[in-house]
């Protein structure tokens, strides 16, 4: 079984602040992923600088396998001392883990990370260690596929304090909420957004503190092949389709002509839907053996809009897709389900499209943007031009 590690986070800024005092930093080094969530003392610029320094230093050092003692020392010596409070301080949580779910969790003064296993919340078995006079809790990780680690800044457990909750959102209540709300199909990104969004609600849309949730999940890899447009050399249609159909995983076809070519190769017929769940997106089609068949450029254009929202770490709209239009279905497969995406982009020019806002340059530009966004989501992306 091929495993994969995914991560995602969402940050809420304290009301009226332009900068967030929490910072998440991610680094990939070989098989290992390092995710750091740091929370700087105070809020605004000062906190942002502390958190940025802490997360960047920790992430770089830990991902290069440097001893934690040295990492903590470096931070202590680097952080500027706050003039008013006379201390230099930022809290942090660090996950250092490989694709098999093995690694370490280091925590310093952040709320305890929540471990979701088998769909239920649990606590980690933490061991206290002393580093340069600071107590850092270390957990040896051994995650199973489908397990999540949810790290958070204290904005989460303080949500609603003095407003609608007397003591904030207690850890046991956060866990109860996650038990109920997290579905096994959700990505790490989706879970982070879900929890941050619940905090925002408790803060009545006016957070009293910077609030950040970062999630990491071990999961099975899912490869998706996506064909966009027919190849330039018509005589080789079958060759290209055969290559597209190769390998396990899901198959997606975008575009009318491409669908016709694929259907012909498979000896199937295309059935098209006649519903318009979204007025901007043309209906989808169905080919036996293909997981999703959509129209081309207009659907992709909508997909770019959806990917921008999906990527934004301050956007609180849910990251799962329930709408049934072509672009939403495609977004669900590419953003939520896929870990590896391979594009097969045909550069054949549809003469009738020239001059319309759906011509080939538009299509290539869209594929470019989408593949870039998918990479930023942490997917392994490959693009073939034919």
């Amino acid at each position, binding site marked *: 079984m091929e495993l994969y590690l995914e991560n995602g986070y969402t940050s809420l800024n304290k009301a009226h602040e332009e900068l967030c005092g929490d910072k998440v930093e991610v680094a990939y080094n070989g098989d290992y992923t390092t995710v750091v969530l740091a929370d700087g003392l105070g809020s605004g610029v000062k906190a942002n600088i502390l958190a940025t320094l802490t997360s960047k230093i920790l992430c770089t050092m830990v991902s290069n396998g440097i001893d934690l003692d040295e990492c903590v020392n470096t931070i202590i010596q680097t952080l500027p001392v706050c003039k008013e409070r006379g201390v230099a301080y930022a809290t942090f949580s660090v996950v250092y883990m490989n694709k098999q779910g093995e690694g370490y969790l280091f925590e310093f003064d952040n709320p305890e990370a929540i471990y979701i296993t088998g769909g239920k919340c649990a606590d980690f078995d933490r061991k206290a260690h002393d580093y340069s006079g600071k107590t850092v809790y270390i957990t040896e990780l051994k995650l199973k596929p489908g397990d999540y680690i949810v790290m958070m800044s204290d904005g989460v457990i303080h949500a609603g304090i003095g407003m609608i909750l007397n003591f904030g959102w207690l850890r046991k209540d956060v866990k109860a909420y996650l038990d109920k709300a997290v579905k096994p199909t959700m990505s790490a990104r989706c879970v982070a957004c879900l929890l941050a969004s619940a905090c925002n609600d408790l803060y009545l849309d006016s957070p009293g503190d910077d609030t950040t949730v970062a999630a990491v999940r071990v999961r099975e890899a899912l490869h998706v092949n996506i064909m966009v447009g027919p190849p330039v050399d018509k005589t080789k249609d079958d060759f290209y389709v055969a290559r597209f159909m190769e390998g396990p995983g899901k198959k997606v076809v975008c*575009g*009318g*002509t491409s*669908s*016709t070519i694929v259907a012909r190769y498979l000896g199937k017929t*295309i059935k*098209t*839907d*006649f519903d*318009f769940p979204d*007025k901007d997106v*043309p*209906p989808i*089609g169905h080919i036996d053996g293909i997981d999703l068949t959509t*129209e*081309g*450029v*207009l659907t992709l254009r909508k997909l770019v809009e959806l990917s921008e929202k999906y990527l934004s770490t301050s956007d609180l709209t849910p990251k799962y897709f329930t709408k049934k239009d072509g672009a939403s279905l495609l977004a669900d497969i590419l953003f939520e389900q896929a870990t590896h995406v391979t594009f097969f982009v045909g550069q054949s020019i*549809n*003469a*009738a*499209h020239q001059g*319309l*806002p*759906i011509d080939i340059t538009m299509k290539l530009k869209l594929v470019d943007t989408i593949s870039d966004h998918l990479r930023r989501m942490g997917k392994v992306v490959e693009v073939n031009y034919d």
Partner: protein
Amino acid sequence: MAKITVCIGSSCHLKGSRKVVEELQYLVKTNKLDDDVELGGAFCMGKCGAEGVSVTVNDKYYAVDPAKVTEFFDDVVVKAVNEEKKA
């Protein structure tokens, strides 16, 4: 039964195929022709250059102006249904 296929490809979508589809669905219903007309969609018919949305009625091609769907329905669709009934 008359078979009507409306193109829902990119180019026709931009020209207003959604409006054509919805109006045809409405007209078929209000004229009680549900048993005489089969509506369906198709990806690009390869006539993107035509002035209007590509529609076929029993495999005969028409380019339909989305503003004139009612006329198209009366002139072409109803006629095709009547002819089939006679036959």
